């Protein structure tokens, strides 16, 4: 997994490539720690995400809880398989997926 991070004022965009699994999810969690200070718009670009497991969902839920206090969070371009994981876990209801 690679994370391409771009900050523009209070907008933070994370373009992620690869698998978000038990081994890589902690990297994403770490990248978010401290990076959300002063951020009101958090965008994940999932165009190149091929796989997500519960470890990745946990990180997204944690980020969503944080962003609910300070702004908004969106997930863009998730592929069909990843979208299905969001749907069966009800994450499509608590995350903003576009």
């Amino acid at each position, binding site marked *: 997994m690679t994370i391409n991070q771009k900050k523009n004022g209070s907008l933070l965009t994370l373009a992620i490539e690869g698998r978000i*699994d*038990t*081994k890589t999810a902690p990297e994403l969690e770490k990248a978010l720690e401290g990076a959300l200070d002063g951020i009101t718009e958090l965008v994940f670009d999932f165009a190149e995400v*091929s*796989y997500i*497991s*519960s*470890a990745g*969902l*946990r990180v997204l*839920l*944690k980020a*969503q*809880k944080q962003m*609910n206090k300070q702004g908004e969070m969106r997930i863009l371009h998730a592929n*069909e*398989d990843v979208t299905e*994981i969001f749907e*069966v*876990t*009800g994450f499509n*209801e*608590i*995350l903003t997926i576009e």
Partner: protein
Amino acid sequence: MKELEIEALVDNLDAVLGFVDAQLEEIGCPPKIQMQIDLAVEEIFVNIANYAYQPETGNAVLRVETDAERQTVTITFIDRGVPYDPLAREDPDITQSAEERQIGGLGVFLVKQTMDDVRYVYRDGMNILTVCKSVAAREGQD
């Protein structure tokens, strides 16, 4: 039937997935179904790695059986750790808001949602969890 016995460590996840994927590829498993099976294998193996032998470590055995005729894959996970029935755990309430949702408890739920059949039995000091999935390509799945 092919069997892998490996130390139940998160660091061995890639080796476990490599073992399973090699057999899925042999029977021409569609990529979407392979992803779902990988997901189930990850969730189950990681649970064994994190909980079965704590604070010690121990081995996990994976048996992969493919049935080319019926187009099914059956994967059995065996550990000799503390007795634990993951299916006894209550499903997370997926209608809750982000604030109410607990972080965790999703792994086993995902396994149940994506596999066709999941069974658990504790026998002779072993946790035996078996998942079964049809790998037949269906319309709209590839």
